[in-house]
């Protein structure tokens, strides 16, 4: 029984992780090895004796070349990664802060027609975002937000705000009202009670919401491509732009860049994992 369980686990894991592994191996190849027609996937330290073996010479040049400016792009990978980080972090902070504020209102105050408002908030996600790309483009051109960090960060914030509001409302509803009421009786004002008691208890929810917002902003492609093709280009748009490369695609560099691009999300999610797990079981542990 145990053995079968392990076998299934291992099979599932290898199936899921194979593309990542392949990407990792590709990032260690030279360009020639990467586009060689025969199969080579065993990294070796020196050049393989038999050119038709499965071996290839492992090299770090792809990582070193990330700082080069490739044809089809305006800057090196690192500067695009920086754009992604700035836009991702800004929009995540803004969505979580605004979403939490909205959710606090919906969860704790008596708002007339609160259900209708919540439905309206959700309805902003009904339309595929790319349907409004042209009006947004025109608007951004007028406002001079095209090709800026601020422009994309604003846009992602707007997209993620509905998600953040709904998620946070769910989490805040789970925190007993008695928490604030106890603080009120103890001599705190409502604002102090929210800040000192409710928000600390909502850390889990905040972490979960932040992960979702960051992932969505980090991987967004459509708007990044149309709005920021000329400045503050994020990594997904940068990779796509490399397709126009007259020297052909620099596969090892793309593999190396993609790995580095995934890394921050993995690290962030890893750091927040304790909260995430608690977040998933939230509401089921208490009676």
């Amino acid at each position: 029984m145990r053995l079968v369980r392990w076998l299934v686990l291992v099979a599932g894991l290898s199936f899921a992780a194979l593309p990542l592994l392949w990407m990792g191996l590709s990032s260690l190849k030279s360009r020639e090895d990467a586009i060689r027609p025969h199969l080579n996937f065993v990294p070796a330290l020196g050049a393989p004796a038999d050119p038709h073996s499965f071996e290839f010479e492992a090299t770090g040049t792809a990582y070193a070349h990330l700082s080069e400016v490739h044809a089809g792009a305006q800057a090196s990978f690192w500067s695009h990664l920086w754009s992604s980080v700035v836009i991702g972090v800004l929009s995540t902070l803004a969505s979580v802060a605004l979403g939490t504020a909205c959710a606090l209102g919906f969860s704790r105050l008596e708002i007339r027609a609160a259900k209708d408002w919540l439905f309206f908030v959700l309805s902003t996600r009904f339309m595929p975002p790319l349907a409004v790309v042209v009006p947004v483009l025109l608007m951004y051109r007028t406002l001079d937000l095209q090709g800026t960090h601020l422009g994309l960060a604003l846009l992602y914030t707007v997209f993620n705000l509905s998600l953040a509001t709904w998620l946070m409302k769910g989490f805040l509803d789970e925190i007993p009202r008695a928490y604030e009421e106890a603080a009120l009786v103890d001599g705190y004002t409502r604002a102090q009670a929210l800040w000192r008691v409710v928000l600390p208890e909502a850390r889990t929810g905040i972490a979960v919401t932040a992960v979702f917002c960051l992932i969505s902003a980090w991987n967004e492609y459509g708007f990044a491509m149309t709005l920021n093709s000329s400045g503050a280009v994020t990594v997904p748009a940068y990779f796509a732009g490399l397709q126009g490369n007259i020297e052909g695609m620099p596969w090892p560099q793309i593999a190396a860049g993609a790995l580095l691009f995934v890394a921050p999300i993995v690290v962030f999610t890893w750091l927040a994992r304790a909260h995430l797990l608690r977040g998933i079981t939230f509401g089921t542990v208490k009676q």
Partner: protein
Amino acid sequence: MKPLLAIRGLAKSYGAVAALRGVDLDVGEREFLVVLGATGSGKTTLLRSIAGLLAPDAGTIELGGRAANALSPAERDIAYVFQNFSLYPSMTVRENLAFPLRAPGRRLEPAVVDERVARAAGLLRIERLLERPARRLSGGEMQRVAIGRAIVREPRLFLMDEPLSNLDAKLREELRVELAGLARELGAPVVWVTHDHAEALSLADRVAVLGDGRILQSGTPREVYERPADARVGRLVGFPPINVLAVAARDGWWSTDSGARIAPCAPDVPGGARAELGVRPEHVALTGGDGGARVKAVEALGPAALVVLDWCGSEVRALVEAGGPQRAGDSVAPRVDAALACVWRNQPL
């Protein structure tokens, strides 16, 4: 002497549902008042109105002789122990205890805070828990600390909303004894709400029975137990529950329609008068009567046994010493101690 808390005509409705329909209640300077009521009788609404967490629709609340309706919860200087909440799980016990003292309006020196926390911890014997995060405490420990949170404040009134109801039966009983002793020691005024009559009887200086959004009766535990104002109060207080029998005066006896002669009635009662008779199970003896009853079941209750009788078709419970000879199916001749029976006249069933 003016009462510490005076409530007049307090009413509150939630939509079409009236929770309180005019409550009058006084709490004295050093009084332990227990408000006893069934689930949904408006107990929590009453407490929340006193605390200022809820604005009543009508009525006045006076604290220390001053109108308090318009005061915020903080200004009322009242401590509240909640039923479904005890502590902030992410803080340690010490932080939880100090939290009310660190409220910005209070401006206490850190040394004073430490001293009060230490004193409360000593009173409740939770010193060894001080550095532990609240979420790692057991239920009983949590509730102890929650009460500590109220004590550190040195408020002018304690409000307790069924603080023991989420604990195991055994733990509840232990903490009850301890809190009753502590309250007497501190001499602090307490309003404690509960649905548990044993809690009410053993803790209270005075019990106020709440039903239908009104105070049905208020008095010492003994008064409420021995002289309940009506059958509802009688049923709410005491275990095993009081026997309530519909009777009519016949030949100098209160008799059931099926002919069981329960107790002699006073000579001034006209024949045929109807009444409800309330008889505590411990006032039913199994011998000395006319007979005509059969034992339906015998239940062990530890020191006592509960004997369920079929007395000419009426179900009557008797509480007797454990280890008696009665078995199900036996015939007995029950007798009611007439002096201790309650007669409620002219009350529709």
